[in-house]
Protein backbone atom coordinates (compact mmCIF):
# COMPACT_ATOMS: atom_id res chain seq x y z
CA UNK A 1 0.00 0.00 0.00
CA UNK A 2 1.42 3.37 -1.03
CA UNK A 3 0.89 6.20 1.44
CA UNK A 4 0.10 9.64 -0.01
CA UNK A 5 3.01 12.08 0.10
CA UNK A 6 3.40 15.09 2.36
CA UNK A 7 3.08 17.30 -0.72
CA UNK A 8 -0.36 15.83 -1.43
CA UNK A 9 -1.62 16.67 2.06
CA UNK A 10 -0.17 20.17 1.84
CA UNK A 11 -1.77 20.70 -1.57
CA UNK A 12 -5.18 19.81 -0.06
CA UNK A 13 -4.52 22.20 2.83
CA UNK A 14 -3.53 25.02 0.47
CA UNK A 15 -6.58 24.48 -1.73
CA UNK A 16 -8.88 24.42 1.31
CA UNK A 17 -7.28 27.63 2.61
CA UNK A 18 -7.67 29.29 -0.81
CA UNK A 19 -11.35 28.30 -1.03
CA UNK A 20 -11.91 29.80 2.42
CA UNK A 21 -10.05 32.98 1.48
CA UNK A 22 -12.03 33.36 -1.75
CA UNK A 23 -15.23 32.93 0.28
CA UNK A 24 -14.12 35.67 2.67
CA UNK A 25 -13.37 37.93 -0.28
CA UNK A 26 -16.52 37.48 -2.36
CA UNK A 27 -19.36 36.74 0.06
CA UNK A 28 -21.39 39.52 1.65
CA UNK A 29 -23.33 37.62 4.30
CA UNK A 30 -21.36 38.02 7.55
CA UNK A 31 -22.31 34.54 8.77
CA UNK A 32 -21.01 32.87 5.60
CA UNK A 33 -17.82 34.95 5.78
CA UNK A 34 -17.39 33.62 9.31
CA UNK A 35 -17.89 30.02 8.11
CA UNK A 36 -15.21 30.57 5.45
CA UNK A 37 -12.87 31.83 8.21
CA UNK A 38 -13.44 28.52 10.00
CA UNK A 39 -12.54 26.68 6.80
CA UNK A 40 -9.23 28.57 6.70
CA UNK A 41 -8.49 27.61 10.32
CA UNK A 42 -9.22 23.94 9.59
CA UNK A 43 -6.94 24.06 6.54
CA UNK A 44 -4.06 25.31 8.68
CA UNK A 45 -4.67 22.53 11.25
CA UNK A 46 -4.55 19.98 8.43
CA UNK A 47 -1.13 21.28 7.38
CA UNK A 48 0.10 21.15 11.00
CA UNK A 49 -1.05 17.56 11.50
CA UNK A 50 0.51 16.48 8.19
CA UNK A 51 3.88 18.03 9.10
CA UNK A 52 3.69 16.47 12.55
CA UNK A 53 2.97 13.00 11.16
CA UNK A 54 5.69 13.05 8.52
CA UNK A 55 8.37 14.35 10.90
CA UNK A 56 7.39 12.18 13.87
CA UNK A 57 7.02 15.11 16.28
CA UNK A 58 4.30 15.89 18.77
CA UNK A 59 4.33 19.70 18.71
CA UNK A 60 2.06 20.18 15.68
CA UNK A 61 -0.58 17.89 17.15
CA UNK A 62 -0.59 19.73 20.48
CA UNK A 63 -0.80 23.04 18.63
CA UNK A 64 -3.89 21.81 16.76
CA UNK A 65 -5.37 21.00 20.18
CA UNK A 66 -4.91 24.65 21.17
CA UNK A 67 -6.26 25.93 17.85
CA UNK A 68 -9.48 23.96 18.39
CA UNK A 69 -9.98 25.59 21.79
CA UNK A 70 -9.28 29.11 20.54
CA UNK A 71 -11.62 28.53 17.56
CA UNK A 72 -14.43 27.56 19.93
CA UNK A 73 -13.96 30.77 21.95
CA UNK A 74 -13.64 32.83 18.78
CA UNK A 75 -16.89 31.48 17.30
CA UNK A 76 -18.81 32.17 20.51
CA UNK A 77 -17.65 35.79 20.71
CA UNK A 78 -17.97 36.40 16.95
CA UNK A 79 -21.53 35.12 16.77
CA UNK A 80 -22.47 37.21 19.82
CA UNK A 81 -21.06 40.28 18.04
CA UNK A 82 -23.05 39.43 14.88
CA UNK A 83 -26.26 39.06 16.89
CA UNK A 84 -25.62 42.39 18.67
CA UNK A 85 -24.93 44.01 15.29
CA UNK A 86 -28.17 42.61 13.87
CA UNK A 87 -30.14 43.97 16.82
CA UNK A 88 -28.64 47.41 16.28
CA UNK A 89 -28.72 47.65 12.47
CA UNK A 90 -31.29 45.02 11.37
CA UNK A 91 -28.89 43.70 8.73
CA UNK A 92 -25.80 41.50 8.50
CA UNK A 93 -24.99 42.22 4.84
CA UNK A 94 -21.43 43.51 4.65
CA UNK A 95 -22.12 46.14 1.96
CA UNK A 96 -24.75 47.78 4.15
CA UNK A 97 -22.49 47.92 7.21
CA UNK A 98 -20.50 50.92 6.00
CA UNK A 99 -20.72 53.41 8.88
CA UNK A 100 -16.93 53.83 8.96
CA UNK A 101 -16.75 54.52 5.21
CA UNK A 102 -15.70 58.09 4.15
Amino acid at each position, binding site marked *: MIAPTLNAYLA*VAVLLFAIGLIGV*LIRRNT*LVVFMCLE*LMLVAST*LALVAFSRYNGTMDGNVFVFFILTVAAAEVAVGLAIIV*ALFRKRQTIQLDQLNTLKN
Partner: protein
Amino acid sequence: MGTFLFNVLAIFTLVTAAGVVVNRNAVNASMCLLLSLVGVAGLFVGLQAYLLAFLLLLVYAGAIVALFLFIVMLLDTKGDARPTLHKLPIAARVLAVGLVGLGVVSFVAQGKLPEPAIGTAPAVGASLKLYAYQLFTTYLLPVQILGFLLLIAMLGVIVLSKRFDGLEDIK
Protein backbone atom coordinates in the same frame (compact mmCIF):
# COMPACT_ATOMS: atom_id res chain seq x y z
CA MET B 1 -4.03 5.05 4.20
CA GLY B 2 -4.16 4.10 0.58
CA THR B 3 -3.90 6.73 -2.09
CA PHE B 4 -7.38 5.92 -3.36
CA LEU B 5 -9.05 6.66 -0.01
CA PHE B 6 -6.96 9.83 0.30
CA ASN B 7 -8.11 11.01 -3.13
CA VAL B 8 -11.76 10.34 -2.34
CA LEU B 9 -11.57 12.20 1.00
CA ALA B 10 -9.60 15.11 -0.47
CA ILE B 11 -12.02 15.63 -3.36
CA PHE B 12 -15.01 15.30 -1.01
CA THR B 13 -13.53 17.89 1.36
CA LEU B 14 -12.72 20.38 -1.39
CA VAL B 15 -16.06 20.02 -3.21
CA THR B 16 -18.09 20.53 -0.04
CA ALA B 17 -15.84 23.47 0.94
CA ALA B 18 -16.60 25.02 -2.44
CA GLY B 19 -20.26 24.41 -1.60
CA VAL B 20 -19.89 26.69 1.44
CA VAL B 21 -18.69 29.49 -0.83
CA VAL B 22 -21.22 29.15 -3.65
CA ASN B 23 -24.40 28.37 -1.71
CA ARG B 24 -26.75 31.33 -1.56
CA ASN B 25 -28.69 29.89 1.37
CA ALA B 26 -26.82 30.16 4.70
CA VAL B 27 -28.40 26.94 6.06
CA ASN B 28 -27.12 24.96 3.07
CA ALA B 29 -23.71 26.62 3.47
CA SER B 30 -23.45 25.48 7.10
CA MET B 31 -24.49 21.94 6.09
CA CYS B 32 -21.69 21.96 3.48
CA LEU B 33 -19.29 23.18 6.20
CA LEU B 34 -20.33 20.19 8.32
CA LEU B 35 -19.59 17.74 5.47
CA SER B 36 -16.25 19.42 4.76
CA LEU B 37 -15.26 19.05 8.42
CA VAL B 38 -16.16 15.35 8.29
CA GLY B 39 -13.84 15.03 5.28
CA VAL B 40 -11.00 16.74 7.14
CA ALA B 41 -11.57 14.43 10.11
CA GLY B 42 -11.21 11.51 7.69
CA LEU B 43 -7.88 12.95 6.50
CA PHE B 44 -6.79 13.22 10.16
CA VAL B 45 -7.57 9.51 10.61
CA GLY B 46 -5.40 8.84 7.57
CA LEU B 47 -2.60 10.73 9.33
CA GLN B 48 -3.17 8.52 12.42
CA ALA B 49 -4.20 11.50 14.58
CA TYR B 50 -7.26 9.71 15.96
CA LEU B 51 -7.79 11.95 18.99
CA LEU B 52 -7.70 15.11 16.85
CA ALA B 53 -10.15 13.62 14.34
CA PHE B 54 -12.53 12.82 17.19
CA LEU B 55 -12.12 16.29 18.73
CA LEU B 56 -12.67 17.94 15.34
CA LEU B 57 -15.98 16.12 14.95
CA LEU B 58 -16.97 16.82 18.55
CA VAL B 59 -16.00 20.49 18.81
CA TYR B 60 -16.41 21.73 15.24
CA ALA B 61 -19.16 19.54 13.80
CA GLY B 62 -20.97 19.08 17.09
CA ALA B 63 -20.74 22.47 18.77
CA ILE B 64 -19.65 25.14 16.29
CA VAL B 65 -21.79 24.15 13.29
CA ALA B 66 -24.78 23.71 15.62
CA LEU B 67 -24.15 27.23 16.94
CA PHE B 68 -23.91 28.56 13.37
CA LEU B 69 -27.20 26.88 12.45
CA PHE B 70 -28.85 28.29 15.56
CA ILE B 71 -27.75 31.84 14.71
CA VAL B 72 -28.74 31.46 11.04
CA MET B 73 -32.22 30.37 12.11
CA LEU B 74 -32.40 33.13 14.73
CA LEU B 75 -31.49 35.97 12.36
CA ASP B 76 -33.50 34.50 9.45
CA THR B 77 -31.83 36.48 6.67
CA LYS B 78 -33.12 35.92 3.17
CA GLY B 79 -30.00 34.78 1.33
CA ASP B 80 -27.65 37.12 -0.45
CA ALA B 81 -29.65 39.87 -2.11
CA ARG B 82 -28.48 40.97 -5.53
CA PRO B 83 -26.02 43.77 -4.84
CA THR B 84 -25.92 47.08 -6.58
CA LEU B 85 -22.91 46.73 -8.86
CA HIS B 86 -20.04 49.14 -8.36
CA LYS B 87 -17.14 48.71 -10.74
CA LEU B 88 -14.26 49.18 -8.31
CA PRO B 89 -15.16 46.51 -5.68
CA ILE B 90 -15.95 44.00 -8.44
CA ALA B 91 -12.56 44.62 -10.07
CA ALA B 92 -10.86 44.36 -6.65
CA ARG B 93 -12.59 41.03 -5.97
CA VAL B 94 -11.68 39.60 -9.37
CA LEU B 95 -8.06 40.69 -8.89
CA ALA B 96 -7.90 39.21 -5.37
CA VAL B 97 -9.39 35.89 -6.44
CA GLY B 98 -7.01 35.78 -9.40
CA LEU B 99 -4.00 36.36 -7.14
CA VAL B 100 -5.12 33.62 -4.72
CA GLY B 101 -5.61 31.25 -7.66
CA LEU B 102 -2.17 32.11 -9.00
CA GLY B 103 -0.60 31.34 -5.61
CA VAL B 104 -2.36 27.97 -5.40
CA VAL B 105 -1.36 27.01 -8.95
CA SER B 106 2.27 27.91 -8.33
CA PHE B 107 2.31 25.88 -5.10
CA VAL B 108 0.65 22.79 -6.55
CA ALA B 109 2.75 22.88 -9.73
CA GLN B 110 6.16 23.69 -8.26
CA GLY B 111 6.08 23.25 -4.48
CA LYS B 112 8.58 20.53 -3.61
CA LEU B 113 9.62 19.70 -0.07
CA PRO B 114 12.30 17.19 0.86
CA GLU B 115 10.11 14.13 1.34
CA PRO B 116 10.47 12.39 4.71
CA ALA B 117 9.59 8.70 4.46
CA ILE B 118 6.40 7.94 6.39
CA GLY B 119 7.70 4.49 7.26
CA THR B 120 10.59 5.87 9.35
CA ALA B 121 8.68 8.45 11.43
CA PRO B 122 6.74 7.00 14.38
CA ALA B 123 3.02 7.80 14.52
CA VAL B 124 3.24 9.84 17.71
CA GLY B 125 -0.18 11.41 17.16
CA ALA B 126 -1.87 8.03 17.69
CA SER B 127 -0.88 7.74 21.35
CA LEU B 128 -3.18 9.34 23.88
CA LYS B 129 -0.51 9.09 26.57
CA LEU B 130 1.83 11.42 24.67
CA TYR B 131 -0.84 14.12 24.46
CA ALA B 132 -1.41 13.97 28.19
CA TYR B 133 2.32 14.01 28.88
CA GLN B 134 2.91 17.05 26.65
CA LEU B 135 -0.11 18.98 27.94
CA PHE B 136 0.87 18.51 31.58
CA THR B 137 4.60 19.16 31.24
CA THR B 138 5.81 21.30 28.32
CA TYR B 139 2.51 23.03 27.64
CA LEU B 140 1.18 23.42 31.18
CA LEU B 141 1.16 27.23 31.12
CA PRO B 142 -0.61 27.50 27.73
CA VAL B 143 -3.29 25.10 28.98
CA GLN B 144 -3.97 27.36 31.97
CA ILE B 145 -4.00 30.45 29.76
CA LEU B 146 -6.53 28.70 27.50
CA GLY B 147 -8.70 28.09 30.53
CA PHE B 148 -8.65 31.81 31.28
CA LEU B 149 -9.33 32.57 27.61
CA LEU B 150 -12.47 30.43 27.68
CA LEU B 151 -13.60 32.15 30.88
CA ILE B 152 -13.02 35.59 29.35
CA ALA B 153 -14.87 34.55 26.17
CA MET B 154 -17.83 33.39 28.25
CA LEU B 155 -17.94 36.68 30.18
CA GLY B 156 -17.61 38.62 26.92
CA VAL B 157 -20.52 36.78 25.34
CA ILE B 158 -22.69 37.46 28.39
CA VAL B 159 -21.83 41.19 28.29
CA LEU B 160 -22.37 41.36 24.51
CA SER B 161 -25.77 39.72 24.61
CA LYS B 162 -27.07 41.95 27.40
CA ARG B 163 -29.27 44.72 26.09
CA PHE B 164 -27.99 48.19 26.95
CA ASP B 165 -28.63 51.67 25.59
CA GLY B 166 -25.36 53.23 24.52
CA LEU B 167 -22.07 53.32 26.34
CA GLU B 168 -23.40 55.08 29.46
CA ASP B 169 -24.81 51.81 30.78
CA ILE B 170 -21.48 50.08 31.30
CA LYS B 171 -19.88 52.93 33.21
